[in-house]
């Protein structure tokens, strides 16, 4: 399979020095190190085509940021092969990073005390962007991200949402074909989140930028990413859409039935009665044992007035998946 990003059997283990507490522990640590192995990735493979938006999900410490660091060329794996745009990231770090943009939600790459515009100029010099191109891109990005009033303000005076818009622009000044976003909307309020989201979609549509995104905001992942990779415990749990994920985990649906007269709730494999009053039943349905058409048949005899089927929230689905992996 030929992809823009190809990863196979990627493995990485960290070794953490263990130290006994106290001054003698520190002294002993100098003479004799005890190391503990912490596997972060244990054989992960995937391929991403150019122009895709892919979400990377996983519980904390699952190996997401390790994967991103390897793909960005700042970390060298123990085993496995990676090519990004035909290059091995960590072998040719400088050439590789010239073609990617990275935004870390919790770190800033702007000069804290200087106006945003100055950060952009110096970043242009670092990435060797032609003066004319730089001016044009700054104008475009400023218009798209609504940076007009912010350009002259020192970064330290910006709100988190304003700063994040500037960070996005900063990561795109050299027009990278690949963008990594690590929790880009963490801590943002709803309007700021929406602005960032629609910008990412727009960027992908207009320039064909490939985007790899990690986030704990699953609504965001659901709207942005047709495809998600779920990593937990250093292994790939799922590679597909969130709808696939739902089907695979298949959590119970909750069905609320309003009745015209009181009746005995039905009994069936895969159906649990949560609550039954004179005019209402609340049922929990396992869709694997009782698919919706069959449920309709079971309810056909009952005096049904109205009926509501609720999907389990996506958080619950993912939490179930993580729990199964653990």
């Amino acid at each position, binding site marked *: 399979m030929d992809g823009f990003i190809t990863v196979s059997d990627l493995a990485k283990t960290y070794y953490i020095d263990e130290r006994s507490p*106290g*001054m003698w522990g*520190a*002294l002993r640590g100098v003479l004799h190190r005890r190391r503990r192995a912490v596997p972060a990735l244990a054989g992960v493979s995937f391929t991403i085509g150019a122009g895709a938006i892919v979400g990377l999900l996983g519980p904390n410490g699952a190996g997401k940021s390790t994967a991103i660091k390897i793909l960005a060329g700042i970390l060298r794996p123990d085993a496995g092969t990676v090519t990004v745009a035909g290059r091995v990231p960590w072998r040719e770090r400088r050439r590789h990073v010239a073609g990617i943009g990275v935004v870390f939600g919790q770190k800033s790459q702007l000069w804290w005390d200087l106006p945003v515009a100055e950060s952009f100029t110096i970043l242009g010099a670092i990435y060797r962007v032609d003066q004319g191109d730089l001016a044009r891109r700054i104008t475009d990005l400023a218009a798209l991200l609504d940076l007009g009033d912010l350009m002259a303000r020192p970064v330290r005076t910006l709100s988190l949402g304003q700063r994040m818009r500037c960070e996005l622009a900063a990561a795109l000044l050299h027009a990278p074909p690949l963008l990594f976003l690590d929790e880009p909307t963490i801590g943002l309020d709803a309007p700021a989140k929406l602005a960032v989201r629609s910008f990412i979609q727009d960027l992908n549509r207009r320039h064909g930028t490939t985007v790899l995104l990690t986030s704990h905001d699953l609504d965001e992942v659901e709207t942005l990413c047709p495809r998600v990779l779920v990593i937990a415990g250093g292994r790939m749990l799922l590679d597909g859409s969130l709808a696939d994920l739902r089907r695979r985990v298949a959590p119970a649906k909750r069905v609320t039935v309003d009745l015209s007269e009181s009746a005995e709730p039905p009994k069936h494999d895969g159906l649990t009665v949560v609550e039954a009053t004179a005019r209402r039943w609340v049922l929990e349905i396992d869709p694997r044992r009782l698919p919706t058409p069959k449920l309709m048949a079971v309810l056909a005899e009952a005096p049904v007035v109205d009926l509501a089927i609720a999907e389990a929230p996506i958080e619950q689905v993912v939490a179930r998946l993580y729990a199964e992996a653990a």
Partner: protein
Amino acid sequence: MISAYFEPFRAAALVEVQYRAAALAGIVTQFAFGWIRMEIFVAVLVKASASAAAQPLALSLRQTTDYIWLGQAFLMLLFTWRVPALREVVRSGALGVELLRPVDCYGFWYAQSLARVLVPCALRAVPMLAICLATGLLHPPVSIEAGLWTAISLAMAFLLSTALAMLVSTAALWLVAGDGIAALVPGFLWSLSGVIVPLAFLPDWLRTVAEALPFAGLMDTPLRLYVGAITLDQAAGPLLRQALWTVALIALGWAAVQRGLRQAEIAGG
């Protein structure tokens, strides 16, 4: 009432006690600098005392090396920037709770700051003194009384160091050039406390100025008592100066905090 101030002291001290690895690094560093300083003075003083033409030295070789090693052990007395700024204390919220109680804001902050100066300094000083005394780099005090007065003077140096650091950081709040003046203090501190050159070696006019300033009380006064450069009957003057400066800086600091807080209230802070 006392416990209201002991609590912040204890809390800050418990935090500082955790940094034992940092103390170890500090001890190694302070030893290395002590060695370099000692070598410079030994190089000069050995030659000077061997020469027949030399005038008598302000401190003997033995007094000078004792002075240097004791100064290295208590070097952190001069690290006034380690005292938390009033802004920090206010922001940490600890003060907000305490303001509801009948506790003086300055006293609360002073207790915290004293722990921040005293504990890391002690963590370095105690092992360093033990090693220096055991290896003969440092001699015991000239007499029991001299040792006793040194201890008293050292205790006062801790109180003075804390008060100085707090006054400087408060002045920075409401003087226009406050930050600048705050920046200047370490400059004077370094030159005029005795840590680089024992004040006894200074020319008379400069020594008189240095001894009149509060910086001498941070280091030179206890060290000179220890090495016997000030005999006990001469000790009253320097000790009194040290005490007066301590009281004066505490009073000034207290007034500055009161004024700072009033301004904060007006500004709605």
